[in-house]
């Protein structure tokens, strides 16, 4: 199983029937591939859609029906559309049960940086700050390291997306939660040892006596 599949499958275990969920672009989008059969999850696109469906067949693209990255999507039966003020009211107003976002860095207090690299990449925050500040639960889908450097750090060196800590970090190696504001290793990926996770992590991790394996 490749890294992205491990992450997407594990995050899919966080889904519950009837949830309103927003998936960011990249790995988070792949979570929708693993919704358990029979479970209805409402996926929001912040450009104004609840009930975002699969990518349409070639030739069935509708130019006024896209995801938040501007890519063609479908709308499932029961979908609804709305303007951007309503869309962000859903996000900030406590109506969004969970958001899954990508990350550049997560630190040991649960702070997230995912919107810019000063001097290199200044794309604008789009909806990321509202999602990271407003969603009831913030889950980060992120590869554990980039170019040999841990992305799970002691303190974010990149500009923060929100002062509010995230709830859960899922990488291809581990699941990390933040009870009491401290990064805590709660699960390891199949075939990955606690030692391997610690060796790949810059942040100080609390390691409980028993660390479960991801049930993917």
């Amino acid at each position, binding site marked *: 199983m490749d890294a992205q599949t491990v992450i997407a499958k594990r995050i899919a275990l966080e889904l519950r029937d009837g949830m309103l969920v927003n998936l960011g672009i990249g790995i988070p989008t792949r979570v929708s591939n693993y919704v358990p059969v029979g479970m209805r999850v409402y996926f929001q*696109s912040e450009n104004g859609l609840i009930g975002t469906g699969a990518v349409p067949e070639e030739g069935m693209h509708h130019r006024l*029906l896209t995801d938040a990255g501007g890519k063609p999507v479908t709308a499932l039966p029961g979908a609804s559309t709305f*303007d*951007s003020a309503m869309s962000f009211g859903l996000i900030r107003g406590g109506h969004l049960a969970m958001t899954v976002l990508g990350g550049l860095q997560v630190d040991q207090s649960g702070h997230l940086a995912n919107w810019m690299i000063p001097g290199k990449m200044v794309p604008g925050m789009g909806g990321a700050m509202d999602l990271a500040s407003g969603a009831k639960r913030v889950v980060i889908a992120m590869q554990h390291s980039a170019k040999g450097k841990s992305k799970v750090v002691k303190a974010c060196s990149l500009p923060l997306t929100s002062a509010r800590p995230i709830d859960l970090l899922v990488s291809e190696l581990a699941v990390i939660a933040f009870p009491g504001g401290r990064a805590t290793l709660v699960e390891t990926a199949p075939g990955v040892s606690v030692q391997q996770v610690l060796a790949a992590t810059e942040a100080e991790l609390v390691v409980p006596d028993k660390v479960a394996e991801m049930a993917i």
Partner: protein
Amino acid sequence: MRTLSLADAVALIPDGASLMIGGFMAVGTPESMVDELVRQGKRDLTVIANDTALPGVGIGKLVRARLVKKAIVSHIGLNPETQAQMIAGEMEVDLVPQGTLIERIRAGGFGLGGILTATGVGTVVEEGKQKVTVAGKEYLVEPALRADFALVHAFLADYLGNLTYALTGRNFNPVIAMAADTVIAATENVVPVGLISPDHVITPAPLVDYLIAQS
């Protein structure tokens, strides 16, 4: 409400005007008006919109033609031409969190001085901004936004200017239609008055100053 030709409608817009333009990655952007702004060479524009789309697409056409002096947007990541002009100091770019941006526009159209939001607290977004604490929670004071013109894309209009939108083409459009001194709507379809059910009108006719049946 008056109907106008595309060229006459865009001719109302002077150089240096501030424009709110509908669309999200060019979906729901009135391309006809963008093309005409480029054709007429309107200069030094301030554009308030969700994003600057892609190079040469939607608002990206205005960027490519170097007509934008200042952009107030949430995202420029998919338009390297915006980034290049920003880095070269040719265009001022004010990046605003998307939810804050649309709510500042909504406030502008709803007669409010601004909004309080927790988005951006503890980040670079709070720099230079007033903060207030309400019921123990910290918020940024974000001022209302208005513009000289709103350029709205509608899917369906009647001859009075009642507007509806389609799917994700709605986005900023009905909100900017409240927040500008002059509202110009370009619609894909026009039907006789009465065919749009009152319950389905999203932007009521009195908000629309000019209607163009060419989106």
